[in-house]
């Protein structure tokens, strides 16, 4: 009798150990794709990684084919995509950050009102809209009435996607401040607006900054909404009412054109590098500021 209890507990221990190893194995497997993807992009993309990538616009299919035949590297770069991404991001930042921060302050300052609850759930709703749907909405709002695809339309669609993230991070980082901070400011006779603008916002700055950077990195690689709003362009364009390119749109073009395929890896490498770089930078900075 004693022996069976002993062996069964041994069996249970064994099962528990086995489960632990399975958990570790599955967790390990999950991390593999990240490294495989980075490896693949490095392996196939480094060849085209040169200065002209940043100084020249994307080549035509014809030029690329000729280069391929004579066994030369494909000429041109993705300058039009880089400038386009910068332009579109600048528009979305200008639109989303002020509105997002103001709404976040409103929600943090009026946490319980019915209006706040409504706005909070609408913000969640906006966050859940698939990116392609955001794209076609902005198509109906902006592209159709203006009779033209435009950087502005792309900027608006990315702004809609950033907005909920900025609202959330503003509200959360303001809520993390001790209530006495606001009271201390008011106790010194400060007006409501000066206490919010000079004490609360600066104190929450690290959270706001990180939140905004993460939002930017999240929308930077978006392709689907840009496909139906900015269309793409083969030249550098700074006019916000004109069609524009973006790094992600160029990847899509290169992917669809066998002649340009070698460029797809280099531009993806650059995009991934930018997105993950901002992502890591944002988290580093928030950690560093938190310790202080």
């Amino acid at each position, binding site marked *: 009798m004693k022996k069976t209890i002993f062996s069964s507990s041994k069996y249970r221990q064994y099962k528990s150990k086995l489960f632990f190893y399975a958990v570790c194995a599955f967790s390990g497997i999950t991390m593999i794709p990240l490294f495989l993807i980075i490896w693949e992009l490095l392996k196939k993309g480094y060849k085209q990684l040169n200065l002209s990538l940043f100084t020249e616009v994307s080549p035509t299919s014809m030029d690329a084919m000729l280069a391929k035949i004579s066994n030369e590297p494909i000429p041109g770069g993705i300058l039009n995509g880089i400038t386009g991404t910068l332009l579109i991001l600048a528009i979305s930042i200008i639109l989303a950050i002020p509105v997002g921060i103001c709404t976040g302050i409103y929600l943090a300052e009026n946490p319980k009102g019915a209006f706040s609850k409504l706005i909070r759930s609408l913000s969640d709703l906006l966050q859940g809209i698939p990116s392609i749907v955001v794209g076609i909405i902005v198509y109906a709002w902006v592209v159709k009435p203006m009779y033209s695809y435009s950087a502005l339309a792309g900027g608006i669609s990315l702004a809609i996607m950033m907005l909920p993230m900025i609202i959330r991070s503003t509200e959360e980082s303001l809520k993390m401040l001790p209530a006495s901070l606001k009271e201390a400011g008011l*106790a*010194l006779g400060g007006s409501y607006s000066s206490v919010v603008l*000079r004490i609360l916002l600066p104190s929450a700055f690290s959270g706001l900054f990180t939140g905004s950077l993460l939002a930017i990195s999240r929308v930077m690689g978006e392709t689907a909404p840009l496909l139906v709003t900015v269309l793409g362009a083969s030249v550098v364009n700074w006019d916000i009412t004109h069609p524009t390119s973006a790094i992600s749109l160029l990847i899509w073009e290169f992917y669809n054109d066998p002649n340009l395929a070698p460029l797809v890896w280099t531009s993806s490498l650059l995009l991934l590098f930018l997105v993950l770089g901002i992502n890591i930078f944002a988290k580093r900075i928030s950690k560093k500021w938190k310790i202080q």
Partner: protein
Amino acid sequence: MENTINTNNDKYILELKNVSVAYTPEKKAVEDVCANIRENTVTAIMGPSGCGKSTLLRAINRLHDLYPEIQTTGEILLKGEDIFKMNPMKVRRLAGMVFQRPNPFPTMSIYDNVLAGYKLNNIKLSKSDRDEVVENSLRSVALWDEVKDSISKKGTFLSGGQQQRLCIARAIALKPEVLLMDEPTSALDPISTNRIEDLILELKEHYTIVIVTHNMSQAARISDNSMFMYLGHLVEYDTTKQMFTKPKDKRTEDYLTGVFG
């Protein structure tokens, strides 16, 4: 009961008349408090936790205005003027406040922290005036010598006791009429507590101080007069000496002898 200490004919700097504070219409945290406070004294407000002592103190600074659900009634006269008829920002400038936990503004340097009241009120000072205010305020809290070489560092780098003295400096930089302190030493170690207590006795020369404390011996050490509050009522208000030696009310006596609290 007439809660006034008539020792001489000094003017009262602070007069509370039937002050009540209600969090909800049914639940009053402070009820019908009447008390007058003389200039350049230290008045301690004591009582078990939840008795309404902090609530009363915060009413004098009109901090309850921040929470629309809180109703304050009655009159509070500051130098004869009803604070509820004044601009709340002016009230708060005249009544400095020091909080339980030291809370220097985390993004500001020590220098800017002292001047925070001026900045928040958009009062422009010349560079020499600013330097003077900072030095004088820090000297009055005996912090100047400790921080004068690191004046542009963040206030949050200081120790807890230093931070609390910085917060006092921040409050007195605006030259308030009264200084309200809400358990200013409850988050500090004994040595820092000692220094703050010494400081309070020094500040008494220039300011009128009202301090909430849950520490009876602290009240005995530093205050001239004491209030004892219980369940939102001001049970007893007398000179500290009188209260600690011959309390008039049974509840005060029970509290002071440790029956509850």
